[in-house]
């Protein structure tokens, strides 16, 4: 309960955000009292990218935080997903996970102190490098709804799908 969510976009070197927030933080949401008891943020994010290379297609990285039993703010999950290539409306359910403690004792102490293992940088979940040394536990899901528009992709020889957006706007919302 009382979770909030940080988002950031990870993209390659050839990508430049032209409008919108690259990183942000959501409001705190509470559990809904009626079934289904999901946490709803409904946080709209609006970002526009331009790029010269599809390599490093942007990904959204989400990290969810919330108070634990003792009221410490702890991380509740990390997750990342590529922004869909195909223009249109997409719904993505991201499986969230958190890094595991290295030992039982660590786990216990971290539970007590409320300082659970966290990624040094949430962006590591968007790349594969170094992930082999981590062990994670999955925790819940976040659903992200994307409304994607593309411009001139077809003109440049990239065929990503049927629709061709009229404008350069990429719009994402929870």
């Amino acid at each position, binding site marked *: 309960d009382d979770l909030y969510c940080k988002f950031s976009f990870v993209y390659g070197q050839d990508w430049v955000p032209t409008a919108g927030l690259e990183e942000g933080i959501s409001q705190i949401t509470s559990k809904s009292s009626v079934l289904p008891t999901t946490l709803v943020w409904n946080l709209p994010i609006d970002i526009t990218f331009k790029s*010269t290379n599809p390599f490093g297609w942007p990904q959204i990285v989400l990290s969810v935080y919330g108070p634990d039993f003792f009221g410490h703010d702890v991380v509740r999950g990390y997750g990342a997903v590529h922004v869909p290539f195909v223009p249109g409306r997409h719904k993505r359910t991201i499986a969230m996970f958190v890094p595991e403690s290295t030992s039982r004792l660590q786990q216990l102490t971290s539970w007590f102190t409320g300082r659970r293992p966290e990624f040094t940088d949430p962006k590591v979940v968007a790349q594969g490098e170094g992930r082999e040394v981590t062990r994670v536990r999955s925790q819940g899901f976040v659903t992200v709804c994307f409304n994607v528009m593309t411009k001139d992709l077809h003109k*440049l020889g990239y065929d990503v799908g049927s629709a061709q957006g009229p404008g350069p706007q990429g719009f994402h919302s929870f």
Partner: protein
Amino acid sequence: MYWCEGGAVRSSVPRPSVPGRAHAQPRARALALRGCGPGAFPLPLPFPLPFPLPARPGRAEAAAAAFPFPQPPPFPSRRGRRRLRCRRAAAERSSTMSAARPGAAGAERELPPVPSTSRTSFAELSVRQRMRDKLKAARIKAEITLSQEDPSPQPRLLKGIRERKAGVRLDKTSDNDKFREMPEGESHLPSKVKFRDSVKKLKQKSTFQNDLPSEEEAYNFFTFNFDAVPEKIKVGARKKNGLNEEEEVGEECVETHEDEQEEDEMDEDVRLVKDDDLFIGQTDEDLLVMKPVDWESYTEQLKREKEFLFVPSMSAVPTSEKMPSNVQPRYLEDEGLYTGERPFVSQSNQNILENRILRQDQGKEWFGDDGKILALPNPIKQPPTRPPIFSLEEGIAPELETVYRKAIKMTSTNQYFVGPGDFQGLFQLDIDISGLIFTHHPCFSREHVLAAKLAQLYDQYLARKQKNLTKLLTDKLHALRSAVQYSIEGGGGDGVPVAQQSIPEYKMEIRQTRRLRDAEQEKDRTLLKTIIKVWKQIKSLRDFQRFTNTPMKLYLRKEEVDQKSDEKAYEAEIQAEIKELLEECMEEYEKKMEEYKTELQDWKSWKKAQKSKKKKKKKDTHVDEESEDYEFGEERVKPIPPKMASTLEIEQQVREKADNCRRKPGEPILVPELTLSGNVTPTEQCPRAEVVRREDVKKRSAFIKVLFNSKEVSRTVTRPISSDFRVHFGQIFNLQIINWPESLKLQIYETTGISSTTLLAEAFLPVPETAVLTGSAPLEEIEFSSDQRVMLDHEGVGSGVSFSFEADGSNKLTLMTSGKVSSSVSWAVGEKGIPLIPQVSQQSTGVPSTLKNIDAIASIGTSGLTDMKKLAKWAAEAKLDPNDPNNAALMQLIMITTSGEAHVPDFFRLEQLQQEFNFVSDEEFNRSKRFRLLQLRNQEVAEFRNYKQVPLHEREISEKIFQDYEKRMQERDVIDSKNYLDAHRAVVANYLQKVRESVINRFLIAKHHFVLSDLVNEEEIPSLGILGLGLFKLAEPKRPLRPRRKERKKVTAQNLSDGDIKLLVNIVRAYDIPVRKPVMSKLQQPSKSSRAFKEMFAASPSAQSSPNSPDWALNQVLVRPFVEVSFQRTVCRTTTAEGPSPCWNEELELPFKAPNGDYSTHSLQSVKDEVFINVFDEVLHDAVEDDRERGSGIHTHIERHWLGCVKIPFTTIYFQARIDGTFKVNIPPVLLGYSKEKNMGMERGYDSVRNLSEGSYITLFITIEPQLIPGESVREKFDSQEDEKLLQAAEKYEAECTSKFPSRQCLTTVIDLDGKTVFITRYIKPLNPPQELLDAVPDRSQTAAELVARYVALIPFLPDSVSFAGICDLWSTSDQFLYLLAGDEEEHAVLLCNYFLGMGKKAWLIIGNAIPEGPTAYVLTLEQSQYVIWNPSTGCFYGQYDTFCPLQNVYCLISSDNIWFNLQEYDSPGRINFDVSKPKHWKPFFSRSLPFPGLRSIQPEELTYEHSDKAAALELQSRIEKILKDKIMEWRPTRPTRWNRYCTSTLRSFLPLLEQNQGKDVEDDHQAELQKQLGDYRVSGFPIHMPYSEVRPLIEAVHSTRVHTIDVSNVEFALAVYVHAYPQNVLSVWIYVASLVQNR
């Protein structure tokens, strides 16, 4: 009334208006409300009202009517009902139940008579009547109050009573749970005992009233204490509040109760009314009951559950219980009857079941006579309930059965084949394997061997018979004879010459044919004979062993012939033969006779000659003659005349021969017939050994593998070997092939038993001709044999083992396993009747197929196919057409062969799928600039590592991007001397660059190796110490008197950008800044004696200045210093302070910009920039040119004169995070116009301390904001050539030391330039310093040491992190260091230490911490029982107790044979003892337990030095001077820069002197000199001294002095450079810069 939830709902009583006592109503209602406590009955149930009116009114009856308690609730809970029942049964056997059944009223059944039956029904009626009335009234009243809703003034007290009463009531009627409330409420009643009594009475009384409860009974429910349930549940607090009231009421109740018996009804009635009135007055709110949820304890629950739950015990039931009493169990088994075996059921389960059964009624029926549960002998159902899955093949579990799918050829895989582009489709080869016959097998018995022989012979016989050569030849013979006959006859008549000629030919032929026929006939006959013989052997063997193994039987069919004709033919034949032979003989005779005659003639002539000779010789020598003669006689024999062959003889011969090889006339023709119709003796009748053999045979089976191009493609089923050693397969394999078959092979395997499979033999199948198609191919028998040696222990003869048929063991025979496979290979025919044969023209799939066409095998033999050289030779000779696509594969092969290596192109590809991902061809890929850019960026090439936004189009990428990179690539080996001005240094720089690149590559690789801590932030487990400290911290004062700097949060240098990082420089204060000399316009001390004079007065300069006191006082401002910090060409300055010991305490903020905007750790590490902290003097000059203006304005020029500087490399700050301390200001030895004011301090004592170390000092604090996390060293395990033991010991030692003093660095092993771990002591070795230096000062060792230190310091300083872009601290050996002429502290320190050792001093290497370098290496020497600390990078030395020694902490001492770790409490040099012999203070690495193993030093034996090259130095000098002059002019773009040549030459003359004196002890006679020579000039200038590495630092240094910034219009400059060359090309550079302003 309703049962309502939670007791919160009020309900009016839907009752018919019964006239009667209204006062009873509230109670009833209260009851109703109370009754439905929370959770008691969740469903609102209609209370069964109205209740019927009894026929006989009475007091008790009335009460009962008013309170319908006897009526049980319609659906009481089970528990409740049970308890209720119990309660009733215990309390009374009254007819309370009958109250619900009014119809049964009056019947006095089941109740024992009770004496007290005095109550009249009348009285009861009247009471009831009254009660009813009152009830009604009360109800009306209550309803009114209900509507009014007025709160009552004292609800709580009254409620308590009501509650209690209601509780009682409820308990009786419906819910037992309510009952629990009673005891507490009642316990306060003093008259509890009385109640009991009353109950007893009541009991007695009510017994006779059947249908209605008596009044007492009814009343009892209000008051009676059923304290049977000792519940301890607290009732609401409210109840307690009402305690007093309760007591009152209780007493009242008791009273009434008592009265009931003694007083009249009225009395009681009144009281009751009174009682009730209490309630009537209440508002309905009071009727609500608030109480906690009823709760039942677990134990209670268990207790209850126990009553109706049954847990069968697991203990065994005694048999007696299971049996009807007095019946003994009877065991059928004991009586000899068969009882089936029961399946296993665990005893405990059985016991449970038995116990359970026993609980039931008639449980015993379940047990049989033996005391066991009756059951079928085997209760398991025989047929399975699940439908069976039928398997096609036995023995394979259905789920494991494999499903055959036709092989699908992936077209995509085709591209990796060698072959042609056009794929023709599949070809098919049918291999039919019909069977296998063993001609010998180890398991053959003797009979089998014979039988096989017989069969073989018979086969031979059949074959011969089929050919029938004998007959053929006989016919021929006859034909020839007749022909001869004819020709002779005809010839006589016609005389045809041709025929005549041919007669001898015929005859010849006849002879030949006859001979052949005879041979054949003989063969036939012997074959027949052998067949018969073998058969006889078999028969005898069968007789002998008394059983038969083979079904073979030989029949000899006799063909009867006509005796006479046969004889005639025989005779005719013989005669003909005789005749022919005679003829032959005659011919021969004639021939021989002729020969004889000639021979005889010869002999005779010879004889004559001989005789004549003899005669002659007789005359000569008698003896010799004789012997000779004898000899001759011996030699020449007289020819014997040929004998005429007699006819008889010939006949004899012919007949003999005919007897031998020909059937006798009249003898029947024998035709052998071999049948398999014989009976094999059944196994039972065989002897043991034979049985074993037969069983062994049965165990054996065989299968055949088909190998195509020596790959197994299929195999036959395994079939058992039959008793006649035949195996029938009858399988046809269709091989779909792509390649031309190179070989077809069958492998025959034999399996014995289950496991062992042996390869018996291999048989090669010929690849069929293209004409051989399926259907037409005959079965061929391919023989095989194996050389296996098998010995068997039964009747089987084995193979490879000799055996014999004879009893005596003679005539041994050895047979090998052999047999025949009958099979056929043919090409399949496709659907359309097209044979699926690879066309000859398509056979380009492999070399052999190509060869087939041209038949290379024929020319070079098969072995040539593997020999590439031969093949190539052949190909060259055969003049293959290289353009023929058929030959492509071969040509390719030959190309490779002839090019040298005999490699067949292998088609192994590492990234075999790469091709599929290639979206452009490689050429295009390489041509594209964009792709190249992307590739380079991905490779993290320095220039492109952070390249953003690679352009989308090719045309947008300019060639320039690659220029730098390409240039670098090209110039990697080209030495650029432009920047270095010195060939050697250029080479070194190039070398360094290469080392650096390799280190960078290694670092980049290491950077991609992550450990957990890189990715996951995890709190460490707090240790006890940390916890303790944490607690201690809590007790700390909030604002300590001496605050310490807090650790700041560190920032990872990832997400930083320009401007984020700032360099904070806090300039606190300075000491001993040089002061201006009084302006000596008058040339006070022009003479040379000034030096002496100065020295003389140096002790008391105040004396010098005191005389001109007024003027002195005015010009008190000796110096106005300010500090300017320049970093990356950004300049910040403090305000101007005054005096030689100024205090600024100012914080300057300088922005930091990383190169290329790359803020990654390793980029920051290699920032070469230095922070220059320059101390200037601000000089004001009066600029008023006109005296008239003096009154109206102030015009001054501000000049700044450089006094000194401190240089701190950025990397030091970066790694140290902060630099805090007092630094020596690098002040040039000569400052024109300034003098070191040593005596301005008032206290002499203080000064004297300071004077020990001359120079100015500045206190600084430098840090980076935000604090950056310094990169970690490369986590790479370097390999080592050190002994493993030593390395382990080193690790242990380091661990021990670090555990004791975690802050002290312990160094045992370091990494050398090759990237190998080397033990540190190997670096220390006495080395010879340059001889030149020693020669310079031969006598004074102290001076020599200083000189050497200076020499070492002159080698440029270059931190490893800069040179190698990572914190891998590489240690180079001294010769490497001298060659590279660049290194950091370690290298300097090692070299200096080695020199000192070479000079015979006692020297150690100190590993410690110094400012500003941080962790560093110094050198310690012991000179005259005093320890001296040397700073190798500056050449300065300090005493152990020198306060200004930059070395702050000492961690380790290292000598050439040991390492000592500092175990002392303190580690600052002034406070420790350097005596390493004390193990308390210094922990040695090599000790007694681990003696020094005599590690060889890695340093060279001796250093050789290049002699200093004076000419090169001179050239360099002029070049530097020119560059610097250009630069100064460049820095002054707006103003003209004039050079004072005269001054320059003067300055130049000073410089060598400075070098000679090492910048010391040179007084400022320069000033005087200049003044003398230049006249009226205001000169400010200084020499800068630097070690030479390259030009850039020199320019920087000059720039930082800001000499060029002088704004005075008539300024002139002077610049002189002097380069002094030391051995090994170590250069010392002096730059003298001066500005001159002419005084007016």
